[in-house]
Structures are given as C-alpha cells and as structure tokens.
C-alpha cells in the first residue's frame, strides 16, 4: 500500500448493493468507485431514491455491500469482525441520521455521553465535553430531558451533539439539516465547517438542501445508484 492510499479515509471500489428483502431485488448502488481523503467536506446529493443513504450505510459497515470492497483508513471492512467493526465505529465515526435516532430511555445528556462511556473517557472529561457541546448547540436547558420531550429540530441537534462530542475522525451525516429551519441549518453547517477546519474532521453528508450544498467543498452527485458527477469546488 503506498503512502497516498494511507490518506484515504474511505476507499470504495465497485460497490454494488442490492436489497433482496422484497420479492423483486432492488439495485440501490450499481458500481461506485470513490475515495474520500482526510479533511474533506463532501456533500452527496441526488434525487430521492438515488442511493445516498445506502451509500453512507455501506461505507460505514452499517450494512453489507453485495459486491465491491470498502476500505476505512486502509482496512478492508469485509475482513473485520462484528466487534472490530463496532469498535472502529465507536472510535472513528460519528453518525448523524436522517431522523429518529436517539435512545428513548436516556436523557439528552446521557445520549450525548453514551459513546464516550463506550470509549471509557473519564467521567470529568465526559461531563465537560457534554456541557460544552450542548451549549454550542443551544441545548443546555434540554440536558435532562428525554428525547420524546424535544422538538424535531432539538432532537436533530442532540443527534449532532452526540456525533461530534467524541471528536471522531469521520462524521457521516444523512440529511443533517432535513428537520431544521433555515437558521438552525445555517448554524449547524457553521459548526460542522468549524470542526472540519479546526479539528480536521472529515465530513460526508447527504443533502437535498441547496444552501447546504453550497457550503460543501466537494459535490458528489448520485443518480440511480451511480456517480453522475463528482466536482471539487475551488
């Protein structure tokens, strides 16, 4: 493996994903080759059903690919055990999901703290980091609430806080701004951009939102499970 390959956070080769849960198999991804390097701030766009969510799931090991290979920081996903894969996600990837992704029995604070608990971060540091990120996202008053007592936007922000709090090397966000008003969407993009620039966190996010696309430095357009366009903005 040469030096350049080592810098690829994600390296996808010939990815095919076929959903076979129904009688008629659905080809969601039809051969995707992509590399994403450290420090990128990349948007994945495309019409509904083009395969954005599927792509994010496959490159993070949340779902198995039907064909092709995925390397995360040089490691082949297909060679990792379930435990290795979860440990890798725990230590390196933050997720922001399209919706409905908090643990209902935990408070906002506990939800955000959860990954750090898995990582074994000391209590004091955990609490400081939780406090800071909740303040950054304007959730300090919601810390002790359960998710079912938050608005959709607040839930989404709590999900963002959870994904960012452990400063993962890679953040995957599936339509992070979908349930936010334009002001909140704006500020979330600011936070993400700042983390990207200051902490060198790599961001890959899918979106429909024109304003969000504009912030991206690289735009990957999916269409019918294939890369239609891939442009880096100056």
């Amino acid at each position, binding site marked *: 493996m040469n030096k350049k390959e080592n810098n690829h956070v994600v390296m996808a080769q010939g990815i095919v994903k076929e959903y076979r849960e129904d009688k008629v198999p659905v080809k969601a991804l039809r051969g995707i080759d992509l590399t994403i390097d450290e420090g990128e701030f990349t948007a994945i766009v495309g019409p509904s059903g083009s395969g954005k969510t599927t792509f994010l799931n496959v490159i*993070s090991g*949340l779902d198995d690919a039907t064909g092709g290979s995925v390397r995360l920081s040089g490691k082949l996903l297909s060679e990792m055990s379930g*435990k290795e894969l*979860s440990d890798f996600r725990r230590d390196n990837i933050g997720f922001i*999901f399209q919706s409905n*992704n*908090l643990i*209902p029995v935990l408070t906002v604070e506990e939800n955000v703290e959860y990954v750090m*608990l*898995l990582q074994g971060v000391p209590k004091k540091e955990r609490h400081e980091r939780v406090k800071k990120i909740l303040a950054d996202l304007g959730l300090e008053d919601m810390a002790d609430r359960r998710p079912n007592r938050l608005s959709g936007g607040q839930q989404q922000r709590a999900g963002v806080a959870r994904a960012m709090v452990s400063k993962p090397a890679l953040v995957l966000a599936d339509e992070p701004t979908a349930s936010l008003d334009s002001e909140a969407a704006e500020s979330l993009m600011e936070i993400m951009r700042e983390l990207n620039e200051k902490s060198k966190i790599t961001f890959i996010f899918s979106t429909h939102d024109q304003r969000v696309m504009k912030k991206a430095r690289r735009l990957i357009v999916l269409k019918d499970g294939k890369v239609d366009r891939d442009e880096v903005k100056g």
Partner: protein
Amino acid sequence: MMFKIALRNIFRRKRRSIITMLTMFVGFVLAAISIGWSDGTYNNIIDSFTRNRLGHIQIHSQGYLDKPSLYKNIENYDSLRNVIADIAGVEFTTPRLFASGLASLNDKSAGVRIIGVDPEIESRATHLDRKVAEGRYFSAQPSNKALLGRGLAKILKASVGDTIVIISQAADGSIANDLYAVFGIVESGDKMEDRASFYLHLEDAQQLLVLQNRIHEIAVICDNLADVPQTSAGIEEALNDSGLDVATWKEFAKSFYRAMRADKEGMWIMLVVILIMVAVGVLNTVLMSVLERTHEYGVLRALGTAPGQVFRLVIIEVLIIAVAGVIIGCGLSYLINDALSAHGVPLPETFTYGGVEFKRMYTEVNLRSFYIPALSVVVSAFLVSIFPAVKAARIPPAQAMRSV
C-alpha cells in the same frame, strides 16, 4: 450503562414487565410450594412409616432379613443396647422378637405373627400404645396378655376379654403353647399387617418360644430422618465384629423406598411443566420487546456498541425481571409454605400409604424449595432470552434502524 438502559427499558414498559415478572413469580411460587409439599409429604410419610413402626435402622443377626428364622437371634441385647444408645443421633432402641404360630378361639383359627415387644420402650419409641383402638395396652409386667390386630380379631371373632390359644414351635424343638387373654385391639394403620399381628409382652414371648433373653431385631429410632445414614454408619462401626447386620429403612423397606422415589420423580415432572409454562411466557414477551426495540439496537450498534454488549443488554433486562420475580416469590412462598407446615392441609380423604394413615399433610420449609425454583426460573429465563438476544446483536445496524 447497559444496566441503566435495561432498567429504564423495564420501567418504560411497565405493564409488560409486570406481566413477565408475574409469570416468573407464579412459576416460582408454584414450584416452591410443590417442592415444599413434596418434601413435606415425603418426609411425613417416611417418618410415620419408620418412626412409628419399623424404626429408621434395624439390627438383626446375620442373614435374618433375607431368610428369617427363629434361630438367627441376638443374645446380648442388654449390652448392645447401651453401646447403641451412646451413638450420636440415636433416640430410642427397642427390642423385638418374632415367630409364627397358630391362634384359635372357639371354632376359629388363624395363622398369626407373634410379635414380642418391650411394652414400655415400644410405647415411647413407636407409640404402640396409641394404636390400641379398643381395650388397654400392656402393663409393665408380663402377665399372659395379648394385643390383637383389628383384622385378626375379626377373623377369630375375638373381643377384649376372650382367651386365645397359641400353638407354635419353640427354639428347643418342643411344641410351644399357651393361653393369652385379649387385652386390646390394635389398629396399626396397615390392614394387611393387622390381619396377622399378635403382640405379646417380650418376656411372655421369650418364655413361649424358649428364647430366654434373646430377640430377633433391634429397631433404632433416630433423632432426625436426614441423619439416618450417618447414624447407621456409626452403629455399624460400633458393632464392627459382632456378626450383626445393620440396615436402614431404605434396605429393609425396599419396595416402600422405591415407591417414595417414584413419587419424587413425579415432583420433578411437575417442576418441568411449570418451567415450560414460565419459559413460553417469557419467550413471548422477550421476543416482543426485542422486535419492538430493533430500531434502538440498530442505533446502539451504529454508535459503536459491540454485538456482545447488545446481547448483554437484552439478557440483563430479562434477568432483572427474573430476579425481582424470584425475590418477591421467595417472600410469598415462604409465607405459604410456613403456614402449611405449621397447620398442615387437611386431606379430602384420609389415605393409607405404606400402612400409615394420613389425615393431614404438612409442607416443609427448606432451602431446596427456594433455590431449586429460583435457579430454574432464572436459568430458564436466561436460556429463553439467548435466542432473541443473539438476534438483536447480529442484525446489521442499517437493517435494524429501518424497522420502526
């Protein structure tokens, strides 16, 4: 952390948790009571059977048990008695002498089993005096008085005050015969036995059979049924080279012992049935809750929770409920078992088992009746949740998160 989530999940679905817990609780209590009942009954019956009649341990001359004979007798009872009485666990020792003979009254006659007993000790050890249903018990001195089993009295048409002729063979080869006044009628509880029993004062019997100072059996009553094996070993050691056989009730009452064992197996079957009930109930609710939370498990897995941790989460949840059910169950079944052991349960019909009549059954409060059901409930709950837990741990996170 997993514990916290599990606990909160339990409270989130209070109704279902309570129903699951109740299932386990009821299973536990049923199992605990059935063990208490079974053990109580078992020990009740054995103790009545042995303590009140045969004795827990019997000592005979070598070979007597296999092939009884007038001549296989014990001659130094007086010294043996003292040796045995000193052994730990021995409560009473009582001497007995047996022979067969023919009894006649007027134109009726019947084969009898002559049983020579020491009236004073026998009444203390096996309460023979309490079994006298009519007439009176022996006096301390030999006086040619006899007690007849109820069945035998019927056959001979004998009543208290009649005089019965006994003919037998004496140890010296002569014909033994004598006259005895019927002093009382005995109902031992064993009707078969009562058809042949002819009780005599030990000394009267020795004189009849020309067996001065000799006996055939020393019956030993122990303080405690549970200690019989140790006490028996102690006696055996003490009588080491005396040429006597020491046997516990399990040996000299083989068929009775086998029947009791079969009864105990019945208890295990009942236990298994109860546990299957619990398991099916638990499986159902665990499957439901895993299904319902599939989405959450997907999120947890996406965040980096290891499959093993998700597995544990499911198991912990079930175990918390199981342990709670067991703890509450312990309280209730203790109260029930304790009450039933103190007051007993009147039986709808008195029944005779191994020759002893039972009117009331007492359960027993013992450790077994707690830990066996507790272990079974917890273990079966655990076993039943393995499958759903593996399912929750294995499903690809994305697929899990698609389910609502």
